[in-house]
């Protein structure tokens, strides 16, 4: 285990590990002493020992066993518990590290991958830190002690055992490697089975449309049969592992009976010593197996820690400057100075310069892919520009403390994301400090402005209704209005609506905008929108196309110039006319009651 981070975690809990190892030594010492008592007892019985000494031996055995059990408990408890603490620390820092990662990181790293590391790799590290570290020391000491005691009893017999027992480790490692190889083959087949199911289910529409179910099922069966075959190949090797190890240990036991018994017959060993020896043999068996096992744990733990370190090695791209400017009250003037943004060499914004005075409302319009979202993402530093500067109140945003900047800017994104929490908690999400009192005036006001208040009243538990992925399913419009309430609740100096009302109907949008004008008076707003009424209400309109600002001005000015804006405007008028049009034949509602 090379990872420096791993050992840092272990060091944090070194007392527990040291205590555990001390207990391990005590437990081994006790475990090694009881065979000796047993030998005295057996030899005593052969010499027709009285009841008194026999009782004493029995009592000694019980005492030793009690001490061993106690020490063994302390060993397990302190080391295994420490490993769980290591796991907890590791998981916490993993999450805290992810929190510092920029958007680009999450875009190139699939959530599934991050989750796999959080679930499987952290567990593998925990197992190594616990069972692995505990067993490695315990095993080695137990091994050395057992061999030493065996040697002190009978060298010849010990050599016999040492000739046989290493096969256990050998088998464990060699067969283990073969098992590992076949296991990989099983995993590969298994994943192609998964892919097959994935494909069948994603393409179910085509399969059904062409009535190809039997053929698909046959293909699935093929993949399934491959899995069976690979698994049976694995079973042949894996099924042999423990029987083979049992066989080797059994052979050792036979040789002990044969050679050890012979020694007793010849009088070079007492029966008690033979019994004692057999106990050391038993004490040696487990470490022989554990040796192979610990090796595996160690390998898995190391591989997993490497995967985790890969994530830890990612440095946050958006970081606070080394010496951030003191952020006074932000007024909300925004300046783009020759800003360019490129993703993978592809230009999204080209040389954009723009000034948005504090307190004004600006609408940004343009066709899909014009760079509107990218433009507004720069203000709260969801992204940093490739070139040029974004200034707030004349300061480059990269020179401002990130927390202060983001406290002043509220973004309502295109894709409304709500957490699996109550509606109330979602609205109050961004408020600093403890949550404001439930149904406090601020929450109610934000809900009112965003027109989500009426919906909340309809929910089963009102504002306490859990929404998000594991809660009540909200409509697209409801989600957008809830995320808007969350932003309004922050009382930001700069409010950015990134096409945030697209699923809200026209009347509701008008009501929202009217309410916002009151709340947002004297604050800067940037609105990306399609609806004409929304756009016209802005102080100024900025037209983006292919990453450039192609025009800006008031609605009338832009219409007068007759460029891209005029086109967009005309299409939007058509769209709105279509949406408003009612088809001629008015059909009846179904149902026995007739029209309602």
């Amino acid at each position, binding site marked *: 285990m090379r990872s420096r981070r791993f050992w840092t975690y272990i060091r944090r809990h070194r007392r527990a590990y040291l205590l555990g190892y001390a207990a391990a030594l005590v437990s081994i010492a006790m475990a090694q002493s009881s065979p000796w008592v047993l030998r005295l007892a057996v030899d005593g019985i052969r010499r027709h020992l009285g009841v008194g000494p026999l009782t004493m031996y029995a009592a000694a055995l019980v005492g030793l*066993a*009690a001490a061993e059990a106690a020490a063994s408990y302390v060993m397990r408890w302190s080391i295994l518990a420490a490993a769980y603490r290591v796991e907890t620390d590791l998981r916490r820092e993993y999450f805290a590290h992810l929190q510092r990662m920029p958007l680009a990181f999450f875009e190139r790293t699939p959530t599934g991958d991050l*989750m796999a590391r959080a679930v499987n790799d952290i567990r593998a590290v925990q197992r190594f830190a616990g069972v692995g570290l505990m067993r490695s020391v315990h095993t080695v000491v137990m091994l050395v002690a057992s061999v030493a005691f065996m040697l002190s009893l009978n060298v010849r017999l010990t050599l016999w055992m040492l000739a046989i027992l290493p096969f256990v480790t050998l088998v464990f490692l060699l067969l283990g490697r073969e098992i590992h190889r076949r296991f990989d083959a099983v995993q590969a087949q*298994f994943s192609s089975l998964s892919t097959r199911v994935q494909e069948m289910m994603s393409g179910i529409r085509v399969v059904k449309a062409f009535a190809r179910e039997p053929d698909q099922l046959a293909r699935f069966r093929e993949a399934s049969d491959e899995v069976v075959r690979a698994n049976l190949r694995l079973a042949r090797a894996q099924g042999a592992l423990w029987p083979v190890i049992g066989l080797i240990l059994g052979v050792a036991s036979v040789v002990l009976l044969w050679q050890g018994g012979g020694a007793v017959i010849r009088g070079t060993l007492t029966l008690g010593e033979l019994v004692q020896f057999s106990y050391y043999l038993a004490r040696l068996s487990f470490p022989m197996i554990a040796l192979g096992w610990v090796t595996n744990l160690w390998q898995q733990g190391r591989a997993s820690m490497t995967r985790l370190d890969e994530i830890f090695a990612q440095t946050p791209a958006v970081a606070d400057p080394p010496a951030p400017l003191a952020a006074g009250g932000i007024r909300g003037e925004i300046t783009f100075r020759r800003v360019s943004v490129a993703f993978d060499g592809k230009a999204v914004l080209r040389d954009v310069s723009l000034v948005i005075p504090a307190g004004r409302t600006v609408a940004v319009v343009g066709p899909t892919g014009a760079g509107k979202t990218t433009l507004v993402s720069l203000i709260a530093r*969801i992204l940093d520009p490739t070139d040029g500067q974004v200034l707030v109140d004349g300061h480059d945003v990269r020179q401002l403390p990130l927390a202060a900047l983001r406290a002043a800017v509220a973004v309502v994104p295109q894709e409304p994301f709500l957490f699996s929490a109550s509606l109330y908690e979602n609205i109050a999400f961004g408020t600093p400090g403890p949550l404001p009192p439930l149904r406090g005036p601020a929450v109610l006001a934000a809900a009112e402005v965003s027109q989500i208040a009426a919906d909340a009243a309809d929910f089963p538990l009102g504002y306490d209704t859990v929404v998000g*992925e594991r809660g009540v399913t909200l409509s697209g419009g409801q989600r957008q209005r809830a995320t808007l309430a969350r932003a309004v609740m922050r009382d930001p100096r700069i409010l950015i609506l990134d096409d945030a009302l697209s699923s809200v109907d026209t009347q509701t949008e008008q009501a929202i905008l009217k309410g916002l004008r009151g709340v947002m008076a004297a604050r800067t707003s940037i609105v990306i929108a399609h609806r004409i009424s929304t756009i016209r209400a802005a102080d100024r309109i900025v037209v983006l196309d292919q990453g450039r600002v192609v025009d800006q001005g008031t609605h009338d000015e832009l219409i007068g110039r007759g460029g891209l804006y005029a086109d967009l405007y005309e299409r939007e008028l058509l769209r709105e006319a279509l*949406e408003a049009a009612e088809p001629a034949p008015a059909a009846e509602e179904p149902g026995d009651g007739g029209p309602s």
Partner: protein
Amino acid sequence: MSAVFDEDPILGRAYDARLVRRLLGYVRPYGVAVAVSIGLLLLASLADLAGPLLYRVGIDRYIAPPAGSSARSAGADFRGLTTLAALYLVVLACGFGARWAQSYLMQAVGQHVMADLRAQMVGHLQRLSMSFFARTPVGRLVTRVTNDVDALNELITSGAVAIFGDIFTMVGIMAVMVWMDWRLALAVFAVLPVVFVITERFRQRSRDAYRAVRTRLARINAYLNEQISGMTVTQLFTQEPRALRAFDGLNAAHLEASLGATRNFSQFYPAVQFLGALGVALLLWFGGGQIARGVATLGVLVAAVQYAERFFDPLRDLADKFNIFQAAMASSERIFRVLDEPAAVLDAPDALPVRGLRGEIAFRDVWFAYGDVLFRDDGAAAPRGARRSGEGDWALRGVSFTIRAGERVAIVGHTGAGKTSIINLLTRFYDPQRGQVLVDGVDVRALAQRDLRRHIGLVLQDVFLFSGTIADNIRLGNPEISDAEVQRAAEQTGAARFIEALPRGYATVLHERGAGLSSGQKQLIAFARALAARPEILLVLDEATSSVDAETEALIQRALSAALRDRTAIVIAHRLSTVRHVDRILVLHKGRVAEDGTHDALLARGGIYAKLYRLQFADLD
């Protein structure tokens, strides 16, 4: 993957008679193999039992014969011991063979049961209606078919049958000990009640602890998964510290549960070990006296000690098995939930077979909504989610039209007008709530679904390509379509040109849904696929794709005109060029047929089509 995290694991009892009975149904076909496996397991247990007995014989006869037995020479004793050792080796070899064969056999049973179960699940999923797939994430289905079924394997291979072995070993040891010396046996058994109490307590605690650990870990993972998805929101609202505090809370709860489980384990193993030692001490104390009184021999004592040590292993195993059972019950519950999912679109019991179609299509007052429809007290119906009847989620509201056999019709309309629903109903991916969809004058619900679909070709805009060769994708696994027919279909649609330019031609293997092919090429394959099936009715979803260049556009148009020849066709059109190929245009608006006529007539009318034309077609053409 993510589907795994979005639900709390079902944690119930380790034994649910209903589930077990149902699971046993899958094992029954392999009854013989299971019986043989149990036999082998008993054999292996017997071999295990023989070891200490042989030790006893060795000690009492050769190594340390009790005083008074006839004395032999040391050489004779050693020869006897050697024979005994050889016998022991044979027993070991038998035990080894039996164990290996048994484990392989059970694996084979387990694997075949899983394969059967998987095939049944997939077969069942194929019968479910599209509404099921619309509301169920694909990832979840994949998990059900793969991982959940896998969890059952352990139950079959190392759970259920192994318990027989454990119980047999314990009973066997008890029997042999009683037979050897019942008083010594009683001394060991004195410890048993305590062992049982401890094991039972451990079992209960570990069940609770296991449940707590699993649920809390699931909570952590669900939280983490959500936080990763919503990370930008958390960052923008500078709520990282609060999220971290919440995470700390979950993490701490999991730690607490883990520590509880660990403490339980840490106590149990040393305790059982101690009780074993206590048994040995009792044996020694009581057995020593017995030997002194000449009632027992040293060999019996040594054998009894060995048995006492082995006696506790199966007990420990039994406790471990508990977890396997619990996980398997949870998985089987989820598996059966999928198997019990009813198919919403069913064939009528007397469904008519379809031999051939003329191709006449009629919709008669069709009302359709994707969600469930609630029937209200006043008898009126409204889709769920609609606040007031008459508004909301109806996709089609009383649609009626007729398309003659051989007629080519384009359906146009604004987003949400209900165009796709027409195709969904015609192919019976869904059934309407009211009204009738007729093909050749027969309600489609009276026809066998798969028969019907065999005569209706479908070209979707989002072309789905399966892994396999290009020919496989055109033929879609239908062995009745010959290579020549595949090629003819490709030639008709103009796909042949690019396919034959590929180094391996029709045998080119496609990876990852046709990565490497342009979207236009994929479209051409989709047309060839539809033509190769020689349908009497062709449905084409031609949503405007912004990323198609002029050359590809021309290719697709050629393919389309070839495909529309000589059959009834409905094209959901978004391009003016597409509309040029049809005889008639149906304009859908807000779920109703608003206009019906030829391109010129509709344009002249200046209604919805005229607006749509200007909005959608004007600058794409």
